[in-house]
């Protein structure tokens, strides 16, 4: 039985009970008041008789007897009046009034259903928090998954795997501060943290800084190099850090070496090659010949893949689905609330990361349109576009 069927069935039961309750008294003759008056009258008459007997026998005397007699007489009169009224009313119960009452009673559920259809959300199921958490994986409910992971982690806060699972999810939800903290915890609690872990942490820091590479990120990338010499991601970022620090020659040399070491089909190849070319131009040098590009993906893609690996309790398809639903949600929200610059920045980045270059481009164009009069916002959009390798008009 579907939710809707069950709902309307229960509504029907409710209406039936209400109608039965309202209409039942109309079906029986309303004799109750009359019956009671007649019964009361009989009792009082008995009492009066008893009293007279007792007075006659001299068991009650004087004032008390008079008082009691008056009282009972008063009640007899009242009961008789009540009986008369009840009879009159019974006669007054005409068919017209009854018909009106029955029609009114029938109008009750009709009106109720009509109003409810306007104001209600018919058959919509409840959504208790616990059930939502239990169904989180089934429904690709990333926010609920995060909440669940947090609850688990609250019980064993020293489990590095828990932190590793949470961190990328935070990144997906755009909660970068929490993500950084989670990566930091994961590193702290792991016996021998891997280069990947340091990279992930440092990259989250870079994202939170909108592409700037702060000191703590540099340190973490250096640590990754130490643990895994030649690791391309940390080499790339360290070179970029040099570039940001104004050491263009050094950055150029290191990127050139990195490009030489990267297999042409590596996803990051193209992005590194572009950087090298740009730098070569700026420095007036001859750029090295670049072999065919394997893909248009930026090094960012590597980072995401790494984050995804850490989400161990979901299958690859599920993971993608989660991220896509997140991104679609973000896109929807921005339609309602287009002034959210950070939202647009996140959306563009996410589109690019998902390999949806067209949509990233479109989002960028739309954002540039919205913030046409906002110098600052357009600068940030341009910076992001440059970082992701999207052409900014």
């Amino acid at each position: 039985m579907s939710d809707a069927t069950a709902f309307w069935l229960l509504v029907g039961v409710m209406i039936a009970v209400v109608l039965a309750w309202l209409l039942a008294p109309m079906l029986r003759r309303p004799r109750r008041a009359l019956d009671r008056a007649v019964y009361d009258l009989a009792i009082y008459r008995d009492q009066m008789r008893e009293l007279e007997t007792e007075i006659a026998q001299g068991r009650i005397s004087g004032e008390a007897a008079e008082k009691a007699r008056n009282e009972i007489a008063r009640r007899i009169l009242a009961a008789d009046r009540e009986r008369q009224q009840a009879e009159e009313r019974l006669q007054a119960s005409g068919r017209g009034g009854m018909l009106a009452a029955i029609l009114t009673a029938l109008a009750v559920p009709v009106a109720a259903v009509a109003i409810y259809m306007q104001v209600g959300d018919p058959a919509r199921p409840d959504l208790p928090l616990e059930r939502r958490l239990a169904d989180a994986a089934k429904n690709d409910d990333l926010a609920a998954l995060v909440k669940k992971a947090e609850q688990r982690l609250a019980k064993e806060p020293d489990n590095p795997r828990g932190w590793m699972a949470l961190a990328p999810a935070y990144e997906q939800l755009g909660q970068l501060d929490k993500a950084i903290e989670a990566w930091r915890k994961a590193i702290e609690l792991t016996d021998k943290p891997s280069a990947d872990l340091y990279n992930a942490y440092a990259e989250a820091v870079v994202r939170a800084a909108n592409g700037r590479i702060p000191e703590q990120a540099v340190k973490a990338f250096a640590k990754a190099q130490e643990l895994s010499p030649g690791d391309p991601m940390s080499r790339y970022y360290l070179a970029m850090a040099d570039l940001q620090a104004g050491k263009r020659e050094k950055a150029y040399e290191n990127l050139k070496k990195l490009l030489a070491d990267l297999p042409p089909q590596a996803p990051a190849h193209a992005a590194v090659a572009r950087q090298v070319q740009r730098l070569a131009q700026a420095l007036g040098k001859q750029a090295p010949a670049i072999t065919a590009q394997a893909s248009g993906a930026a090094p960012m893609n590597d980072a995401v893949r790494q984050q995804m690996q850490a989400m161990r309790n979901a299958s690859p398809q599920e993971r993608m689905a989660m991220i896509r639903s997140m991104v679609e949600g973000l896109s929807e929200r921005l339609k309602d609330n287009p002034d959210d610059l950070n939202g647009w920045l996140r959306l563009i980045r996410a589109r690019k990361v998902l390999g949806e270059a067209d949509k990233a481009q479109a989002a960028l164009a739309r954002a540039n349109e919205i913030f046409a009069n906002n110098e600052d916002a357009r600068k940030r959009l341009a910076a992001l576009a440059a970082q992701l390798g999207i052409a900014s008009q």
Partner: protein
Amino acid sequence: MIVELGHFALVLALAVALYQTFVPLYGAARNDMRLMEMAAPAAIVQFFLVAFSFAALVHAYVNSDFSVLNVFQNSHSAKPFLYKITGAWANHEGSMLLWVLVMAAFTLAIAVFSGNLPASLKARVLGVQGAISSAFLLYINTVSSPFVRIPESRVPLEGQGMNPLLQDPALAMHPPMLYAGYVGFSVAFAFAIAALLEGKVDSAWARWVRPWTLAAWTFLTAGIALGSWWAYYELGWGGWWFWDPVENASFMPWLAGTALLHSAIVVEKRNALKTWTILLALITFSLSLVGMFLVRSGVLSSVHAFAVDPERGTFILAILAFFIGGSLFLYAIRAHALKLEGSFEPVSREGSLVLNNVLLSAATAAVFIGTLFPLAYEAVTGGGKITVGAPYFNLTFGILIIPLLLILPLGPLLAWKRGKLKAALSRLKVSALVAAVVAILASLLAGASIKAALGVGVGTWVLVGALQEWAGRVMLFRAPLKVALSRISSMPGHLWAMTLAHAGVGLIVLGAVISTAWKSEAINAMQPGQKVEIAGFEVLYKGDRQATGPNYLAEQSLFEIYRNGEKIAEEISEKRTFLGSRSMPTTEVALLHYPLGDLYIAIGDKTQMGRTVRIYFEPMIYLLWLGALMMVFGGFIGLMDRRFRVGVAERTDSRIAAQPAE
């Protein structure tokens, strides 16, 4: 889908309430028995529908169903279980639903327990109750629904949390009690309207009205006392009554209800004061509605705020205008139809009750003017602000209430119809003497000001006077102990109720005067290790620590309390910050009870100078709650009185006790 079923039940309840209004009233007008008998089943059905709807909302709260907007806005999954339940009414929409539920419960009680009411009176009473319910169900279903859902794709995972001030056991019970009081007066209102329609008020009518009024009054007293107690220990300022408009909103119907309780006695016993009692019944419930309007429409924060978002406020205002205006109009055209009344001398029990009513009504008017004047001023001047504060209320209310307190012990000693003032006064010689001695002692030994000494004297006069009246009634010290004991055990409930309530008033006066006149306070910025001396205690500030509760973080300050150099207690005073988006911190004061009074320690912010610590000594403030408790207890005992069992006539002879009407 319990949420949606609850929502549907609420809509259905509205339709049933309309049915309950029109069919019986039409039936009573046509004198049609069948239609009149439709009222009770409709009232029963309406109650169960509203109760189901309310249960559905509580269910959503308990299960943290954040797809319900109301739950999202007012709950948090980490809240303790109790506050998940009470959270359901700690917000506007939920509290309105609770209001309607209490209303339906009272209506149900009338439908079930008043089998002996004359059919047409019962039909009319239930019809009027149905009309009031309809108005509020319409309000809830149109502009204040607690069942609005959040679109599926946007359901949040966590709620915004409850107003932290309300996360408190006293406040969990405060609204239901208060509402039971407000709404209970609707019964007296409905009886008054029905009587106007019938054109008949007699002592039987008063006997039916009194228990409902007493029940409402008892609940309202308990509700106000709980609210005042809560303000005392939760707000951290050491006061117990602030003449705040929200407090006044509940105090006005209480004053009018107290007057009604007394005037109904005259109607029942002497068949007099009928039209006045009817008017009072209308006014009392009208003041309940005004109180709800003040609290619920947002008009208090600012008339301007009300004008910006007027939907709800205007709706309540329309309800108010309809019931108050309609009932007074009906009174104006029908009151003359009520039969003339019995006569009495000025000096008599009736006379004293009239004086009681005059003074209580005047006091109500004083509070009413003080509460509404700032609103009127703001509306007229277009935003001008003016505050009517404690000095106004203390002066006007004080002037009116002192004569009332002075005649209070006299009233019960006067005979009906024609009393002897001299005899009554001479019976109170002892009370007067005790009061005078206490007042003199207070000013000589405890250094009371004249005002404080007089206050203590008046409180003592009321308290001892009530006890003396009781002692005289049971012939304590005048008859052998055995006789007195047997009289005590056979004293009827309504007399106990009177003695307890009157003695309670005495205690409240004493508590109010003493705790105000002898209060001492010390407000300091303290460093750990510092000591402050107050009222013979030494309070040592030890330092701070952090603690976590189920859904809050607490800053705790530790104190040690010394007397005569000896450590007598260690106490913690807290400031709590709750989870959720409402981050206003609340205080949990350290409260120590001693025979002479309460030591009260509240902490404020930490500055460079140290922690702000407010320490108060509140002498004998417990007399206030004790007095209120006695009044409530008296009310319950009065309700137990078999005379009040609805429809049972007073017996003049044991023989008639066998009558069948029970």
